[in-house]
């Protein structure tokens, strides 16, 4: 019954679709359709046959404000022509008129024709439609923004977590050697001497071991405290290096300390290399010497001053020195 009018209506809209309305020679409005269902989009174009001094106004929508601009495209430039495109839609059924638009071309105002759009609803026949259970609420995947909005306070925890990871997993745990290395040389030497005393080496006829350890403690102390190469130096080289260090650094190292060190090292050489066995009184005396030497060579806060001197001494390696001046070794060995 309604088929014929409906057909006519379709024909009419098809003509409108294909029909290009010429506002005048220069401005044309074109649309892909004038009839849509709710939510469908209409492509609307304003075509101007000019390129200079053209101003497209802001699109004026229908008076009921039922039409909506989905997207306003940039002006498209083709040969001697500008095209401004819009995507429109509506979510209310009805007939809406897009009013005349005013386009400025070289100071002149040109009006487009109004366009009428029909927005229809979708006919739903619930009697023929199969029933489905109500769908559960669908959850949407959260984006980074959602997380950032919801869990921003976790960022504050990151440094703490990072610190915990570093502390327990990344940080190199201090070894026993490193711990020992941090102990000041003087305290270290004192501890080692006390430990040596407790071993009762010489009392148990292990004089050689006793003197070996005693001289090792002193040499290590000198090397660490004064930065004078001691472990790799012979007795005479070490004494010469200390004398030189004393003269060049200006540190208050007494001659008595150096003489005591020399006596002790010479005696130790005899014990270590010539199977000499000193009397108990001599051993005790040398032990006391060790305390005096530690005190005598202790440096307080004069490190910066001594560093230059140390470098000088290290540069002049003992063996080279001895090679050039064999007198040093020979006289001291004597």
């Amino acid at each position, binding site marked *: 019954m309604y088929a014929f009018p409906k057909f006519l209506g379709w024909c009419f809209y098809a003509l409108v679709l294909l029909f290009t309305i010429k506002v005048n020679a220069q401005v044309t409005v074109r649309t892909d359709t004038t009839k849509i269902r709710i939510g469908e989009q209409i492509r609307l174009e304003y075509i101007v046959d000019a390129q200079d001094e053209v101003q497209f106004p802001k699109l004026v929508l229908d008076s009921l404000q039922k039409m909506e601009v989905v997207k306003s495209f940039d002006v498209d430039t083709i040969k001697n022509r500008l095209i401004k495109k819009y995507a429109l839609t509506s979510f209310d059924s009805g007939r809406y008129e897009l009013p005349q638009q005013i386009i400025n071309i070289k100071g002149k105002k040109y009006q487009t024709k109004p366009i009428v759009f029909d927005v229809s609803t979708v006919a739903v026949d619930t009697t023929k439609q199969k029933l489905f259970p109500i769908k559960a609420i669908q959850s949407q995947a959260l984006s980074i923004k959602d997380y950032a909005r919801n869990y921003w306070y976790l960022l504050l925890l990151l440094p703490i977590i990072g610190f915990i990871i570093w502390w327990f997993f990344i940080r190199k745990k201090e070894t026993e050697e490193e711990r020992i290395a941090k102990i000041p040389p003087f305290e270290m030497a004192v501890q080692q001497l006390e430990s040596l005393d407790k071993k009762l080496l010489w009392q148990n006829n292990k*004089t050689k071991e006793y003197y*070996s350890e005693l001289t090792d403690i002193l040499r290590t102390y000198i090397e660490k405290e004064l930065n004078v*190469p001691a*472990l*790799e*130096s*012979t*007795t*005479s*080289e070490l004494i010469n290096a200390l004398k030189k260090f004393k003269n060049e650094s200006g540190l208050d190292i007494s001659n008595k300390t150096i003489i005591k060190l020399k006596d002790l090292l010479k*005696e130790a*050489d*005899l014990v*270590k*290399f*010539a*199977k*000499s*066995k*000193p*009397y108990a009184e*001599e051993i005790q005396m040398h032990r006391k010497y060790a305390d005096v030497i530690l005190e005598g060579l202790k440096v307080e806060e004069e490190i910066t001053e001594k560093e230059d001197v140390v470098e000088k001494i290290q540069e002049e*390696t*003992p*063996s*080279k020195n*001895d*090679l050039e001046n*064999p*007198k040093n*070794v*020979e006289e*001291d*060995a*004597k």
Partner: protein
Amino acid sequence: MEQINTGVDIRAINEKIERESAFIDLLRNELNKVIVGQKYMIDRLLIGMLGDGHILLEGVPGLAKTLAINTLSKAVKGSFSRVQFTPDLLPADVIGTMIYNMKVNDFSIKKGPIFANFVLADEINRAPAKVQSALLEAMQEHQVTIGDTSFKLEEPFLVMATQNPIEQEGTYTLPEAQVDRFMLKVVIDYPSLQEEQMIMRANLNKSWEKVNAVVSLDTILNARKAVQEVYMDEKIEKYILDIIFATRYPEKYNLADLKDLISFGASPRGSINLATAAKCYAFIKRRGYVIPEDVRAVVHDVLRHRVGVTYEAEAENISSIEIIDKIVNEIEVP
């Protein structure tokens, strides 16, 4: 102080060495009558003589090399001969040959200049390899074969060979295997200004004193036996071996940077000679035991020619002496 009795009586050794080495001062005084300075060279000559080794001497002409060995031979009442090595020298010119004797109508043996207690092989690198080999074989075996007859060389037998470091053209460089047979390679330098002034004055005034024979050859031979008795502690042995092994495997001694600089390390002959030279040095210092100073005093002369340097080292002007310096400055003294 008392001596411990652990199989080796150091006190007795010390006393013996004191006694046996008494001639050293006498010998020195005699040598000093005509040789000004060069204490370093004289000590090495004594080490070579006492250690039953030979010496390769490197120094520019005119540094009293010939005079030193000649004077030494006079002072110990030994025979001396000098062979000037030239490119046309033949082995027979050094060791001797068979000469046809018209009277007896047979060949008789004519001994060469090597039959002497002290032989100076001047500019050894100027003679071709066959002559060098003949000499070096005699040095090693202390024996010479002429024709069918072998002759033992008279003891003490000390060869002092010289090399001129500034002229290399037309020379036959001694191969490493041959150089290794020299106990010491000594590099001597110019005398000091004061010493040269004394030399100049004495030459101008012709005021050299006559050198007398103050030591017999038997004394030297007895001293050689005494040197063997000089006590060397296990710690010193370990120290020597550490040095030798560091020339072979520097990376094991925290000296990895030397690995690319050393083409070959010291041979076992190096450790034997280092130990012997250290004992000799202790002896001439009139001590019955070896201390690290003794090792340090001779280590350069013993190892200088036994440590080969690579092309990389040569390109960087790094000599074997610098390598030895690095080694002895790294290895801890016992």
